[in-house]
Structures are given as structure tokens and as C-alpha cells.
């Protein structure tokens, strides 16, 4: 076994024996929210899987705020305050640490290794800072894997209409068009895997790759799809996390997640290049849509950043985009904010040309992904303007229209991808 599993952790795994469900909560300085999450997971396991052997695992990125101590002490002492019954089995808590520089990949690799060694039938990963996490999330994610033989369960959240814009405008449509599966959250923070899929992930020689540090979830989803593992989705309800997390650096987010998607496309080229159309992915739970609370939006600033950004980096965009696409993007940038319209077709063309340029390495890949940020701002500015007063039904229709456009224009991606440099 590799050295990433410490002796102490191996001892804990040996003592735990075999389990049916392993729930992993990767942490990094999450002292404030971890107790709630651990309690919800424990109650979920006792309430919905009383007969199954379960373990809770905490791979921690060397937290300095006492997160791991909080995990150890967060055990629910008396389940009667939550449930009518007490647990039939004792619940083990396994803790280990990894170096923060390994990012998400460090935690996920430890989780997959633990699932493999414990011969877990289902492995669930949840975020440590989702304050809206309920015991039902554990049931929603683990049950289809345990009872229905699904290999991958991704979540569907109840979100504000303008949340998850990168997922809705880029990640989900491209995954759908390329891989042929209609997955709503291809880069999930919460997910469940079968033991078989966990072992498959573990066997892949990618864990040390740079893109895995922050983009592991999207690689996991696409790898499962490309290897014909059985995928499903589970409706979990609203997702609420601290404001700190919402305030992510946009350029960094695009670099990590879009980079991971393009990298995955590169790895799975033989699978997706011949695919056409898409199929629905089974959904568990009862999806409901609510227009949750108002979001603080600054559309004007976003458009200004699009305008100035694209003008400043025209010489870089010239190397990535075709002349006609660049001309159209600049036309949008030269217009007025109040009339900003970045059509689906142009956006899809832009994304596909960026993907092809990434594949052909027309420039340093980090630079290329950073160059996408100003253009993305233009698209989002247009999306926000168009959908300002749209009903939820209209929003759904527009989302579907973008995804269909992505599928329709897929030959452009294939053509750009295989074009000689």
C-alpha cells in the first residue's frame, strides 16, 4: 500500500473490519460547521440504515482550528432526542490527515482507499460546511447505491435561480453533449459511489495530477460515465453554505473546474468523440423548485469587466478563437449593457473553440483558461439580463435550449479537437 495511508489510519481501518456504508467528510478548518454535519450524518445512518455496518471517516487537511477534535467529540450521545429508536450497531469514526497542498484529490484518494480496504458497498462524500445538510441527504445518496445497484449518485439541489451559473452555462451542457448523460451537477460536492466504482477510481493513475487538486469531482463523474458505470441523481433539497465559500475567486474557479473538464475530455476522447444525443439519468427523490431568496447581483460591473477584459486580451483571444467567433464576441462587448445579448450559439462556439485550443495547447493552459473568464462574464451578464424576470418554467426551457444547442453543435467540438495544429 502506498505511503499516503498512515500507519495509524491503517490500524483504524484494520480495527473497523468491513462496512456496508462509509461516509466521508473531508475537512479543512471547518470547526464552526462540522458538528452539525457530523450529527446529521450519524442520525441519517442510524435512522435509515440501522442494520448496515457503517463508518464515518474524516480526512482532514491539517486544520489548525481543532476541526478534527470536533469531529471526534461530535458523536451523538443520545439518539432519542432525534429518533424514536437507538442505534443497533455502534458507529466507528475514522480520522486521518493529509497535506493541504494535495487539495480535494488528497481527501478523495484516502476515501477511495478506505472504501476499498473496508469493502464498503456504498461510499458517500459530503461537504463539511453545508449547513442545510439533513439526515435525509445520506439516505438520498446511499440508498440507490445500496438497494438499486447504482454506481454513482450525484445530487440535485434546490438553488437560487442565479446560483451555479458555471455549472448551468458550461459544465452541465458540455458534459451532456460530450458524454451523452443529462447530469445536473457534474462537479458535485456531495456524491455516493459503489465499492466497485471506488476501486476503479483508486486504480487510476491520476491522483498526483495537478488538475485533480481542485477538479477531482468532475473527473470522477466523467470517468464513471465514460466507463459505463450506472449513474443516478438524487434530489437533496436546498444547499446552504457559509458566505465565505460563495465568495470564490471566479478566475480560479474557472481554471480549476473548466480545466478539469477539458482534461477529462482529453482522457476520455475515445468514448465521447463518437457519441451523439443524450439520455436521461434516473432521479430519486421529489424535485421541487422554489425561487430562494434574492441574490446580490452586480450585472453592470460584470458587463464592464467583460467589455474591458475582452478588449485588453484581444491578442490572446485571437490565438484561441476563430476570426468569426472573436468578431461576434467583440460585437457583444462593444454593445450596451442594457441590450447585452450573448446568444447560446455564440457561447457554445466559444466554449468548444476554447476546449479545442486547450487540447491543441495553443498556449500555456492556465493562461488559456484565465482568458475564458472575461468572456464568461459577458455570457453571464447576458444570462442575468435575459432571465431577470423569467418564471422558473422559462428558466428551465432556456437551460434546456442551451443544452440542446450544445448537443447540436457537438460536431464543431469534434472537428476542432481533431484539427491538425
Amino acid at each position, binding site marked *: 500500500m502506498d505511503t499516503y495511508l498512515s500507519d495509524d489510519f491503517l490500524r483504524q481501518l484494520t480495527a473497523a473490519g468491513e462496512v456496508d456504508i462509509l461516509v466521508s467528510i473531508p475537512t479543512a478548518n471547518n470547526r464552526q460547521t462540522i458538528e452539525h454535519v457530523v450529527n446529521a450524518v450519524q442520525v441519517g445512518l442510524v435512522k435509515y440504515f440501522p442494520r448496515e455496518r457503517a463508518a464515518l471517516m474524516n480526512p482532514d487537511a491539517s486544520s489548525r482550528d481543532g476541526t478534527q477534535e470536533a469531529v471526534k467529540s461530535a458523536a451523538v450521545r443520545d439518539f432519542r432526542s432525534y429518533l424514536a429508536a437507538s442505534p443497533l450497531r455502534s458507529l466507528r469514526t475514522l480520522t486521518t490527515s493529509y497535506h493541504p497542498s494535495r487539495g480535494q484529490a488528497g481527501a478523495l484518494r484516502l476515501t477511495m482507499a478506505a472504501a476499498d480496504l473496508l469493502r464498503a458497498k456504498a461510499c458517500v462524500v459530503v461537504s463539511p460546511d453545508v449547513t442545510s445538510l439533513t439526515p435525509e441527504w445520506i439516505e438520498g445518496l446511499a440508498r440507490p447505491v445500496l438497494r438499486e445497484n447504482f454506481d454513482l449518485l450525484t445530487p440535485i439541489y434546490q438553488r437560487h435561480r442565479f446560483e451555479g451559473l458555471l455549472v448551468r452555462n458550461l459544465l452541465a451542457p458540455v458534459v451532456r453533449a460530450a458524454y451523452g448523460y443529462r447530469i445536473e451537477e457534474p462537479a458535485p460536492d456531495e456524491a455516493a459511489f459503489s465499492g466497485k466504482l471506488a476501486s476503479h477510481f483508486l486504480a487510476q493513475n491520476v491522483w498526483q495530477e495537478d488538475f485533480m487538486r481542485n477538479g477531482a469531482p468532475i473527473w470522477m463523474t466523467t470517468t464513471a460515465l465514460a466507463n459505463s458505470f450506472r449513474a443516478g441523481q438524487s434530489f437533496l433539497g436546498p444547499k446552504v453554505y457559509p458566505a465565505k465559500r460563495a465568495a470564490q475567486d471566479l478566475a480560479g474557479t474557472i481554471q480549476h473546474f473548466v480545466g478539469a473538464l477539458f482534461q477529462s475530455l482529453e482522457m476520455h476522447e475515445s468514448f465521447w468523440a463518437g457519441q451523439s444525443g443524450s439520455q436521461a439519468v434516473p432521479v430519486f427523490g421529489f424535485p421541487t423548485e422554489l425561487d430562494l431568496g434574492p441574490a446580490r447581483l452586480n450585472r453592470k460591473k460584470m458587463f464592464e469587466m467583460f467589455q474591458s477584459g475582452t478588449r485588453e486580451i484581444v491578442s*490572446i483571444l485571437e490565438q484561441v478563437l476563430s476570426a468569426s467567433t472573436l468578431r461576434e464576441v467583440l460585437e457583444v462587448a462593444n454593445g450596451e449593457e442594457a441590450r447585452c445579448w450573448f446568444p447560446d450559439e455564440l457561447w457554445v462556439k466559444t466554449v468548444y473553440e476554447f476546449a479545442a485550443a486547450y487540447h491543441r495547447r495553443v498556449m500555456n493552459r492556465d493562461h488559456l483558461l484565465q482568458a475564458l473568464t472575461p468572456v464568461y462574464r459577458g455570457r453571464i451578464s447576458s444570462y442575468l439580463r435575459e432571465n431577470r424576470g423569467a418564471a422558473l418554467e422559462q428558466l428551465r426551457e432556456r437551460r434546456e435550449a442551451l443544452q440542446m444547442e450544445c448537443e447540436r453543435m457537438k460536431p464543431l467540438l469534434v472537428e476542432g479537437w481533431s484539427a491538425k495544429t
Partner: protein
Amino acid sequence: MGNLLLKSLTQTMEGLSAMLADFLPRLLAMIIIFIVGGIVAWILKVIVRRILSFVRFNQLCETAGFTQLLTKTALPSPTELLSRLVFWVVWIAFTLVALSGLGITALNDEITRFFLLLPQIFVAILILLVGVLIANFFGRATLLAAVNANSPSPRLLSSMVRFLIIILAVTMALERIGLGHGVILIAFSIAFGAVMFGLALAFGLGGRDAARRLIEKRFIDDQKKEDEDGISHL
């Protein structure tokens, strides 16, 4: 008197004939070396061009941003530039060898110096090329970072970074071939120091508050980092 003049003329003519007899073969040899040098240089140029095309040197330079710089300065493609460079260096070398064959002492010293300098010139060109590539890389990185951070003058910042790195590369290259030894280094140090000092002063005096806010944001208050758009993109 007449005999003396005739004798003198005969001697001069004999001397001239001897000189010509000595010089003409050398001149002929020089012309032959000159022509052969031209042919060898042309053959080498073609070979270098083929090799560079085979290894896709143009694409490599394009990725690194070197081609764009050449295009801006109306220079040919990197492959063409390098093959032409090989042609001229080889031909000049042959020409100098040919000239040394004439036996002109003053020329011979210069030619020897040129040949001693040749490896240094190559190293200097290499330093310059690498410098331009590094300057372009960091210039582009600065431009993108500044654009995405909504900084007021991204292109100015990027140009400054590129300029400083190119100046550093030029200094190193000139130092390598021994031009202005010491003077260039001192001039560069003074100029660089002045720019940094000026920036430090400007930042310290003119932007005290901004500096404080920046440091607080970066080191103390990183929890309050604000999203420029106010929405989660994931």
C-alpha cells in the same frame, strides 16, 4: 643612366610579377572559399529549416508567444529566422577564413577575435531568445491576472513586466559578449533600483491607505474576501 632606369623598371616589374604571382592564387583561393562557403551555408540553411519544420519549431514558438513578437516587429517566422541566422553565420565564417588567406596581418587579428567571440555570440543569442520567451510568458500572465482582478491598467502592468525581463536578458546577453562590461550591469542596476524605489515610494506615500487595505485583505481579513459578482458560480 638609361641602363639604370631600365634595370630599375625591370626589377619593379619582376617584383610586381612576383607579388601578383603570390597574390593571385590567394585571391583565387579566397573567391573559391567564398563561393563554397555560400553553397555550404545555403545547404546548412536548408537542412536546419527542414529539421525545424520537422520538430514543429514554429508551433513551439507560437505556444510560447515568440512568434507574435516576431510578427509585431515584421520579422519572418522563427524557423526562417533561425535558418537565415545559420546561413549568415556560416557564410561570414567562410568569408573571414577566405580573407585570412590573403595574409593581411591586421585582418588576421580581427578574424581570430571574431572566431573566439563566435561561441559567446551564440550563447548571447540563446539568452536573448530565452529572455524573450520568459518575458512573453510573464507578460501574458500579468495581463490576464490584472484583467481578471479588474486592475486599472492591465496592459501597462504587463508591458512593464515584459520590458523589465527583456532589459535584463539584453543586459545579460551584452555582458556575455563582453560589450560594455560592467557599465551595462551598473546602468541596469541603477535603472532597476530607481524603478523599484519609485514604486515603493509611490505605494508607500501615495497609496498608504490602499496598501493597508491590501495587506489587511491579504493577511488579516482573508475571511471577508468579497466576490466581485456576489453570486456563486458553482
